[in-house]
């Protein structure tokens, strides 16, 4: 009993201290004195409020993003809308670049005004960046709506959007509908099945091998059955190992069946292939999300934080959804009834059950196994 009282008292005094600090800050010279690079979350009022963040960001007037293709996850519209709303100019460096190049840019362009403010990277790269101290911890206002498994406890990085490994097929050329990884062994699919790229290079193809492992007796800590599955498909002649799988190889019949992220099949292939069907395999649900992070050395720290607040607002989340990417706060949007229903209906229904991911250690092991064994077993 006494203990609780002490604890409450301690908490109260800390709060008072914090409040004191806040108000003294406020009195000194208003919002411009805030060092936004050090702000880890917004407060409802005071110098670290949303209103002050908007003011400071508009004053910076510039946001440097990197590797955001305008046709990827609706980023083109997202950037346009952000600029229209806040009058902040966005520079998008190397739109077609990769996560690895984003990290390189943060490190090598440090101190320059063109250095990236924010990044959108695969989780392995978010973790690598955190271990190098490249990120500034920040928790958006809707932090609690992001599932605990999808964010760093320190706030260094946080999942933004993603999707599930899915099988897409062109019914005009594929007479029997595939439903699962097992079903892909059907001899009718000779010379038909493709990945988007090499699993040693592309996150999506790597995830497809991981999902195939789950469907064939493997687990997050054992990806080998996935490699063996594709080796078997290759031996049977079903697997076409081209690294340029995409809309064109579905269209020209090189790979009428394509295993890729559901959101990319929906956004890139479906619009150009009439009747294109997308199904999440019944024997494997493998999800992956990209992560947002703010550079610790961001030249526009306020704009960077405003960008994150915008992305995790209902508007930002629905814009991603309109680009067929599943925003990380989708279940909250659905529960609140604020989801864009048309966009939501365009994606195959998410598999039941809570979101799970491999741990970083499991992921790293799997990466090594694929790097070592993919060419050896499948080639």
């Amino acid at each position, binding site marked *: 009993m006494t203990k609780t009282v002490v604890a409450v008292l301690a908490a109260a005094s800390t709060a008072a201290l914090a409040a004191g600090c806040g108000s003294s800050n406020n009195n000194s010279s208003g919002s411009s004195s805030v060092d936004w690079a050090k702000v880890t979350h917004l407060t409802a009022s005071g110098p670290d409020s949303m209103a002050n963040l908007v003011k400071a960001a508009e004053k910076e007037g510039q946001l440097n993003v990197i590797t955001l293709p305008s046709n990827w996850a609706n980023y083109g519209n997202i950037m346009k809308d952000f600029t229209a709303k806040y009058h902040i100019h966005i520079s998008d460096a190397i739109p077609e670049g990769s996560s690895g190049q984003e990290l390189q840019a943060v490190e090598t362009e440090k101190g320059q005004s063109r250095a990236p403010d924010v990044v959108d990277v695969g989780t392995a790269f978010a973790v690598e960046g955190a271990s190098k101290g490249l990120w500034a911890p920040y928790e958006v206002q809707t932090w609690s709506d992001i599932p605990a498994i999808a964010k760093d406890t320190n706030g260094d990085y946080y999942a933004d959007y993603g999707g599930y490994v899915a099988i897409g097929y062109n019914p005009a050329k594929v007479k029997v509908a595939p439903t699962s990884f097992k079903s892909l062994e059907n001899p009718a699919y000779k010379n038909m099945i493709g990945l988007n*790229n*090499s699993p040693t290079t592309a996150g999506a193809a790597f995830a497809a091998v991981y999902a195939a492992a789950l469907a064939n007796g493997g687990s997050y800590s054992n990806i080998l059955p996935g490699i063996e599955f594709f080796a078997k498909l290759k031996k049977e002649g079903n697997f076409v190992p081209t690294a340029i799988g995409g809309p064109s190889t579905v269209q*020209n019949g090189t790979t009428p069946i394509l295993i890729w992220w559901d959101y990319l099949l929906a956004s890139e292939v479906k619009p150009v292939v009439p009747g294109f069907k997308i199904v999440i395999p019944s024997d494997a649900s493998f999800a992956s999300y990209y992560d947002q992070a703010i550079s610790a050395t961001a030249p526009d720290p306020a704009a960077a934080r405003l960008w994150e607040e915008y992305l995790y607002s209902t508007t930002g989340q629905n814009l991603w959804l309109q680009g067929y990417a599943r925003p990380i706060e989708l279940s909250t949007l659905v529960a609140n009834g604020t989801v864009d229903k048309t966009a939501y209906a365009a994606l195959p229904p998410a598999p039941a059950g809570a979101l799970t991911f491999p741990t970083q250690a499991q992921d790293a092991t799997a990466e090594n196994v694929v790097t*070592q064994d993919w060419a*050896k077993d499948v*080639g």
Partner: protein
Amino acid sequence: MAEAVTAVAAPDAQASGARPGRALTIGRAALRWLGAVPFGVYIALGLVAPTIAIAIAAFQSNSGAMTTANLDGAVHGVYLTGLENSLELSAITAVLGGIFGLLIAYAISTARRGTVLRRVVLTLSGVFANFGGVPLALLFIAALSTTGVVTGWIKDVTGVNIWDHGFTLFDLSGVIIVYMYFQIPLMVLVILPALEGLRPAWREAAQNMGASAWQYWRYVGGPVLFPPFLGCLLLLFGSGLSAYATAEALTGGTISLTSIQIGALLNGNVIAGQENLAYALGLIMILIITVAMILYALLQRRAARWLQ
């Protein structure tokens, strides 16, 4: 040529004590060096500096400490396989491309200068030799994949679907076929000057002395052409070794090639934190190319004895 003239002119000027002439020569020499400065800067920034940076990074761990672990990793396991495959692919495509290219170039060299056919072949060779990357892979997929146009024609004409008889674009044999598309024209371009250097007078002299065609090639043409032929093969070897996007696009990493592995380590979205291993692989490729280019230079020197 210009250099020789200067070298001859300079002693003359000195002997006659004509100071203005000497100053002029020095000024010209300085100007010549000045003219080379942009090229020197370009080489320093574009070739020397990156090579040094790669060599240093190849011996560094992620934390910056000196280590030989990267090089050790680069010559073991899947990366050793990658090197072997790269060397094999480059050697096969260099030899095949070299032989076909030589035959085509010989055919052209026997044609009169300035004929339309000759000009067309040379121009097309210049274009095709520089064609590569993903567009080249797409072109072959459109032509020769299971549903490709050419595959369809062959099926219409002969009734045979080549894909049912073991043909594929998506493994090493497919990559070799596609590489021929730029290796053969490259060979035509680089071997033609050597073929044109074979003087008709030599052949006539040999015939006058009663040599058969075989004897002419065995004792005159062959020995003169052999060094430049080998030199050209080395160039083709280098071109095959460095080609990257085409093979990647066709095989999706199912065959290991060093260039593809470097790409996966540096630019990939899957493997993180092993960039220095890529630098070690890059260093090994630089060494291979250096050896090939030194041999090429030696062969060129030998070839220059007869062909000028």
